[in-house]
């Protein structure tokens, strides 16, 4: 049986005058890892921001576990269990690593303890006093994921976690992601790196010009790979 967690229907969104999302619809089931694939400017990041309520100009339907996100004030969204790892990582330069790590308030019981986090991301250990933005790109990415895991959020939005990272670090992040999946977390992953995406995900959505235009199951992917490549213009 499938257990629907997120249902997005006919979602439109705007930045001021420019209309970015043009009626996108998709859904995510409990415990699934779903990717949003698509070229630059397809609206993937806007989709994440619209889900979180960072972008306020929205129309359509977003239902998370029975809650209407369009009418939820932006600071209440996190309390529904949504954890956001933004594209630019959002590590604060005026906070050290320890402060960055404990910045987001706990939203649900069952979050990871600090020692579990260090087990998952050993690189972060012993860096407490370092200014957040002095970490390497990979470490900043780990910190951005780690601080969300601490809050007990069970639905993670990951926006391009591998962007600009060395292959070794990408492997570390992939490993972490598999651990999270095995813990039963639900994840939406925005990716350009198809190899990374296919290694972690259950299903894939393709976005084009603010719409979801296609869907693939990871099992059937080998047959459809050429189609995906065509979408992404590889």
């Amino acid at each position: 049986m499938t257990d629907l967690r997120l249902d997005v229907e006919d979602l439109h969104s705007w930045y001021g005058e420019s209309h970015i999302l043009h009626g996108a619809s998709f859904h995510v089931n409990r415990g699934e890892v779903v990717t949003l694939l698509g070229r630059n400017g397809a609206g993937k990041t806007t989709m994440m921001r619209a889900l979180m309520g960072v972008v306020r100009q929205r129309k359509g339907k977003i239902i998370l576990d029975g809650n209407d996100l369009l009418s939820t004030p932006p600071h209440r969204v996190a309390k529904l269990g949504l954890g956001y790892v933004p594209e630019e990582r959002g590590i604060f330069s005026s906070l050290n690593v320890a402060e960055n790590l404990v910045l987001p308030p706990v939203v649900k019981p069952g979050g990871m303890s600090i020692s579990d986090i260090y087990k998952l991301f050993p690189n972060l250990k012993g860096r407490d006093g370092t200014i957040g933005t002095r970490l390497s790109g990979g470490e900043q990415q780990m910190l951005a994921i780690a601080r969300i895991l601490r809050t007990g959020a069970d639905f993670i939005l990951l926006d391009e976690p591998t962007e600009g990272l060395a292959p070794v670090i990408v492997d570390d992040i992939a490993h972490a992601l598999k651990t999270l999946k095995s813990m039963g977390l639900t994840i939406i992953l925005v990716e350009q790196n198809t190899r990374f995406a296919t290694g972690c995900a259950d299903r894939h959505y393709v976005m084009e010009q603010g719409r979801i235009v296609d869907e693939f199951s990871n099992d059937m992917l080998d047959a459809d790979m050429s189609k995906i490549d065509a979408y992404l213009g590889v």
Partner: protein
Amino acid sequence: MPELFGVPVVVLLGQIMLGLINGSFYAVLSLGLAIIFGMLNVINFAHGALYMMGAFITWILLSTVGINYWAALIVAPLVVGLFGVVVERLALRHLYKVDHLYSLLFTFGLALALEGLFRYIYGSAGKPYPVPEQLTGVFKLGFMILPIYRAWVIIAALLVCLLVWLVIEKTRLGAWLRAATENPSLVTAFGINVPLMVTLTYGFCVGLAGFAGVLAAPIYQVSPGMGSSLIIVVFAVVVIGGLGSVGGSILTGLSLGVIEGLTKTFYPSASTIVIFVVMAIVLIIRPAGLFGREA
């Protein structure tokens, strides 16, 4: 009588002490300005008027209902802070989207209106306020005589500054404030009610100005113009120190107070303008200010 550079040491120390008192007020006010600027991107011109309001509330409480200094020390900042909350909710909030200059102009108008209001009701003349009896008298330090109330003002102001600094630099709440200064929408996405935090920050900093006003009441005469003359000097302090650093604004405020005090000893007629001269020199040498990050 011992002398230093031709000035009796007693006089010199007395002026430094007066300078430290002025410096304490500069520090408390510029600290508030810096935090408000960080969170709201607003230069709060009304800060001086709200300081004046704090002093006036203290005076009104005593002269009409007989509420004493110690109660005023709590009540006046609260009233001023609440007033600030209302101002932020009704007005400033709607100006964040437009050019920062408009919020400066709004608070400029607010300062004019408040000063005009108090002048209309209470007249321009200064009102004396008695030093609370627990703090009357002097410390005889041998080398100088220090009125107890002045020592109290310096200690209270410094303690408040230190406390605010600690909260901002060392606590979780402070981390939220710093993070929200950098990236408010991400902090909101983490589940923190940033607009509420902004309102409370403004209320708190404005309450600090009110607190400074209470401290000032027994030292300076309580008058409608006391805020505007102070706020312009504090602006110069803020330009010298830069708005980027809370610790920097405390330090700059205190040291400029002392510089002013020293000028009063050696060249009294320049004492009113010395801070502006320092500002001009700093701007020529270091256009971004001493601790400055360009806004």
